[in-house]
């Protein structure tokens, strides 16, 4: 029984030392050599503690659990530590002396070697840290110990076998399992902590990199935004400059021909008058072109703002018709207006007028004889304005080109004074007003242009 208790005592001490070792070891983990030496010291301390709590069978024949300490030290702490521990144990055993000294020293050495063997075996087979294998270690170490009993003085061998066999083979392997498990768990915990620290480090690094990227992107975006705003400003300034530069010379041309024609600069002959009028009309035409080009530029640059208000579309159509009466009369054309009573719609009056004027102007331009019909009617939340003429018409294949910029089409050998932008501009304006515009025609007979706008202009919010 005393041996039993002695072994249990030893195991308790070993475990306690191991726990303390665990506390301190984590601070040394970065210094490998220092850590090994520290382990060596702790295990040495543990082995001394067990050897001090020994069971004395007879003077010089002592038993303790040093085999556990040393074998586990070999397996878990490695060569440096197990060497230190073994040396400590051997010195102490020699000091104790007695007949069992040889066995004692052999047990120490062989436990160390078996422990180291398991350490290296573990490299290729990590499951060795599991309880069943630790038990195997314990079994091998202590069977070996029982074999070494034969190195004892002959007279005690039999007594020793009787006394220690059961306790040794029953308790010590289990002690090995507990000791090994404790150390393994400590090892695992350290590994997990390290792994967590590493992962944390990686995460932080990734986070920092991401933050850097985000701030870089934000900077890039801010720069791009500034550039876009500058570009936008440049666009505005360009259009404004264009407008100003193009109008300035026209001021002189239109102005001075006007003055001369009024007779303010002296008498004007018939022929001079005739020629000056041609200059004047050309200049007026040029002005129209400039206005169209500037208008298109502004629409393309997205710089046109609509002025949405309620107005009477019938009255507007009537106004436009009246403005063309003289011109139509000159060309011997009849203009007929077909409107319902007052019809209020909500849209941009100026721009709507611009489109109607364009359509009527085209109709008159391309009609030699007959009539122009301007019709207004309301249908399904929309208002349709139709401008029909008995003019030269448009070929089927040309209808698609009508609304293109500078789209020239076959016009029966006619050279018309147009900017080529009129219908293009009308189409762009119609799009802005959220309406539709289309043309139908029979070549040689006439055309109908239909311009549709919603009764109530609605801003579509994205």
């Amino acid at each position, binding site marked *: 029984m005393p041996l039993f208790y002695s072994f249990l005592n030893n195991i308790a001490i070993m475990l306690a030392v191991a726990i303390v070792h665990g506390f301190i070891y984590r601070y040394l983990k970065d210094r490998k050599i220092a850590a090994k030496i520290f382990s060596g010291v702790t295990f040495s301390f543990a082995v001394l503690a067990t050897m001090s709590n020994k069971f004395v069978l007879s003077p010089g024949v002592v038993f303790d659990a040093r085999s556990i300490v040393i074998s586990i030290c070999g397996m878990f702490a490695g060569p440096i530590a197990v060497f230190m521990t073994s040396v400590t144990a051997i010195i102490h055993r020699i000091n104790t002396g007695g007949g069992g000294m040889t066995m004692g020293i052999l047990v120490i050495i062989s436990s160390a070697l078996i422990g180291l063997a398991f350490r290296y075996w573990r490299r290729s087979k990590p499951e060795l840290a599991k309880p069943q294998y630790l038990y195997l270690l314990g079994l091998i170490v202590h069977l070996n110990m029982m074999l070494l009993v034969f190195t004892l003085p002959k007279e005690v061998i039999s007594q020793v076998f009787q006394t220690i066999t059961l306790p040794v083979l029953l308790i010590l392997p289990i002690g090995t399992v507990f000791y090994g498990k404790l150390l393994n768990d400590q090892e695992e915990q350290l590994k997990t902590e390290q792994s967590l620290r590493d992962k944390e480090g990686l995460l932080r690094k990734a986070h920092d990199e991401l933050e850097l990227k985000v701030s870089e992107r934000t900077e890039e975006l801010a720069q791009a935004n500034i550039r876009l705003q500058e570009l936008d400003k440049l666009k505005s300034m360009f259009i404004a400059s264009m407008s100003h530069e193009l109008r300035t010379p026209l*001021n002189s041309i239109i102005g001075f021909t006007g003055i001369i024609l009024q007779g303010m600069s002296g008498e004007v002959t018939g022929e001079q008058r005739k020629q000056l009028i041609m200059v004047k009309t050309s200049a007026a035409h040029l002005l129209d072109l400039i206005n169209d080009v500037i208008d298109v530029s502004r629409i393309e640059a997205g710089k046109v703002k609509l002025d949405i208000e309620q107005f009477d579309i019938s009255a507007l159509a009537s106004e436009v018709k009246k403005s063309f009466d003289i011109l139509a009369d000159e060309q011997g054309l009849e203009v007929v207006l077909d409107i319902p009573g007052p019809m209020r719609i909500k849209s941009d009056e100026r721009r709507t007028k611009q489109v109607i004027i364009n359509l009527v102007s085209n109709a008159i331009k391309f009609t030699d004889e007959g009539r122009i019909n301007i019709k207004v009617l309301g249908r399904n939340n929309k208002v349709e304005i139709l401008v029909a003429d008995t003019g030269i018409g448009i070929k089927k294949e040309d209808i698609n080109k009508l609304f293109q910029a500078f789209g020239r089409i076959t016009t029966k050998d006619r050279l018309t004074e147009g900017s080529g932008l009129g219908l293009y501009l009308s189409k762009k304006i119609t799009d802005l007003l959220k309406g539709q515009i289309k043309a139908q025609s029979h070549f040689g007979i006439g055309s109908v242009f239909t311009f549709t706008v919603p009764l109530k202009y609605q801003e579509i919010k994205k």
Partner: protein
Amino acid sequence: MKKILIVEDNEKNMYLISFILKKSGYEVTEATAGEEGIELAMKEKPDLIIMDIQLPGIDGLEATKRIRASEADGNIPIIALTSYAMVGDKEKALAAGCTGYIEKPIDPEAFAAEIKKYIK
């Protein structure tokens, strides 16, 4: 005889406007830059000022603002000459203190009549 001050940097435009106004019976003073225009406005106290908006140095709007700031009472009508470049040009002219505006290129037939409407 009523006096009109023209502030315009383009010499052809200046000649044109000046010619029309003289023929219509007005006395004409000319300034080719904003600062000169402000000086003459204060010195001569014309019955109307024609102010081109695009001027070197301080532009027509700024000149208008300064003239308005220096007037005690009896505002001189200031007509802006705009070239319909940007949206809001007209509004800016009126906001700076212009009484009215005329778009370039001017209509030689109607110009004199329009000026007559504004002059004191």
